[in-house]
């Protein structure tokens, strides 16, 4: 498994081409795009197992990016044993692909509390399975829906991130909560290496724009261990992020 997270104080840039972060963006991941991404020197790429299967040769070799396999939680009602079977199969698949971590999401702000409970139960099963197979987990956390307000958004980000870390996530990704100070505060209470996420604005309703410069400034000025970019970023933006983050300046 390739190391993708902070080692010796360094930071990493991940690109998520799995639709996990930008749930509402229809980005077509072409082979050319993945090829170009790998060639860009990005530290890690998040993709679903089926996409990874198609591009597994790109993750071979010393200079290739780390592969992080994403597993989406089944939002439709499923009982515990079905959930555990899904999780078990997905984690084993990720291991078979040589993944460096398994990625999933945990959202707070569901209209129905039972959805939050099922999402958290899924997270628990996934982390159980990851621990069993000694593979790290990266949990993308975010507030969603109408319940989090502009005033409570930062608290909701903190709640989601903290819940994921309490459940046992190895890494957590959080959306930009407006300022570098807010991000730093959340990192502190989360207690695990934390990525800043390039979140779709339809989820982060009413929240500050995640322009690349803002994201990188926040990541550089805080204890964050990197950024997780959405697939809508251009290759030039990914390269700028790599130069910015590894060079220690915004862009």
């Amino acid at each position: 498994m390739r190391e993708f997270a902070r080692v010796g104080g360094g930071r990493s840039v991940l690109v998520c081409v799995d639709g996990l972060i930008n749930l509402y963006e229809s980005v077509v991941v072409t082979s050319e795009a993945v090829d170009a991404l790998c060639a860009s020197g990005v530290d890690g790429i998040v993709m679903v197992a089926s996409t990874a299967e198609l591009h597994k040769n790109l993750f071979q070799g010393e200079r290739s990016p780390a592969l992080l396999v994403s597993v989406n939680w089944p939002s439709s009602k499923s009982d515990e044993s079905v959930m555990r079977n899904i999780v078990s199969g997905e984690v084993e698949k990720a291991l078979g692909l040589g993944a460096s971590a398994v990625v999933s999401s945990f959202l707070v702000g569901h209209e129905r509390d039972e959805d939050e409970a099922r999402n958290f139960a899924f997270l628990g099963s996934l982390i159980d399975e990851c621990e069993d197979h000694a593979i790290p987990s990266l949990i993308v956390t975010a507030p969603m829906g109408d319940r989090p307000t502009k005033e409570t958004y930062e608290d909701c980000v903190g709640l989601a991130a903290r819940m994921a870390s309490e459940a046992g996530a190895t890494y957590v990704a959080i959306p930009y909560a407006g300022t570098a100070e807010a991000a730093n505060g959340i990192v502190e209470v989360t207690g695990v290496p934390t990525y800043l996420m390039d979140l779709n604005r339809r989820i982060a309703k009413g929240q500050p724009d995640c322009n690349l410069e803002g994201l990188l400034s926040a990541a550089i000025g805080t204890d964050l261990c990197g950024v997780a970019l959405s697939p809508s970023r251009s290759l030039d933006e990914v390269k700028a992020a790599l130069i910015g983050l590894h060079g220690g300046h915004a862009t």
Partner: protein
Amino acid sequence: MNEAKELRLSRIFDPGDGRAVVVAADHGMMLGPIPGAANLERTLTRALEGNPDAILMSPGQAERLSRLFRGESAPALLVRCDWTNAFRDRTYTLPARSTQFCRVASVKRAAKLGADAVTIYLFVGYQDKEREDLHMEQARGFARECEEWSVPLVIEPIPMGPRVTKTNYHELVKRSVSLSVQAGADALKVPYTGDPETFRPVIEAAKGVPVLVLGGSKALSDREPLEAAEEALGVGASGVVFGRNVIQSQDPAQTLRLIREVVHGGKTAREALTSGRAGPIILRANPDLCTGCRICLSACAMSKESKFDVSKARLRVEGTWPNPTGPVVCDQCGSCVQACPTGALTVDDEIGGLRCDMELCTLCGACVQACPYGLLKMDSERVYVCDLCSGWPECADWCPTKAIVIAPR
């Protein structure tokens, strides 16, 4: 119970007296970074100086803070394997709309983390009977896993939901304890019903399974939860689980020392709170810590006059919220004693408080005139003086911010 479970339980319950002091530090999983739990490592490092027998944590924290559980004198580890939103009331960011619960970790994972026991909830009082059955089923599932891994199961039965009323609360605690024993609990973590009479049947319902009584929500003073613990232990509880009263304490180690004196030392709450005091005492006020809540006035009036008539309080608070200028307390300066023409006013040598002998007092008012702080009061029947509550000043005891403290004279 098998031997491995017994061995693990003996790391929690002191084999000498069969009792335990447990710190609950699993709030972050349910409520997010609440005060005291935001930087758990810092809080628990301080708490460990108070020598708790065990600490309850989430699986994630147990893994990250595993260093706290290493070594001969380290506490035992309890891992919370389930989650609920039931405690998110209206004051929280995302208040619960309906009570939910779920599994978060397997017993196998808890065992791999080195858990000496696994803790789960069992709620009784749901509107929907099916939910109660589902919760019971989950508890039984955990009990089976615990049996397989030889890890003791601590069930926390809590009356929760619309069917719970003040009237049926203690009955529901008793019923939920019975259900927990049926589900396979090896120990119980039970809320206090409020008095020994209603808690005794709860202990009986546990049928010999050790009962740890909960400290409850953050109390205004150390005294309240300590008295509850004393009462519960008196009717057969095997120890306490204190959460916010420890992790949100200004001095978690000192709070734990007091709890240990009650649980393991066999002291009453009063003895624990006054132990270590030798000789006369004095009250000291720290105006910077005063919030202007005036609980001290009510505590004083209630203690001395058995009513909330703050005009009879032996101290006052100047200024009002949000800009209080602080409490003014009697520092036994002796001006009133010197001014008393009949010798009615004296200072108690042992405690340091004032005494007024009404047989000698002529109600001349010289003492009231002499008090440099304007604290002494008098009516047509008597003089109201601060006697330091016979060595246990209520104002200091109830002050939530320690703006009034007891010091050696």
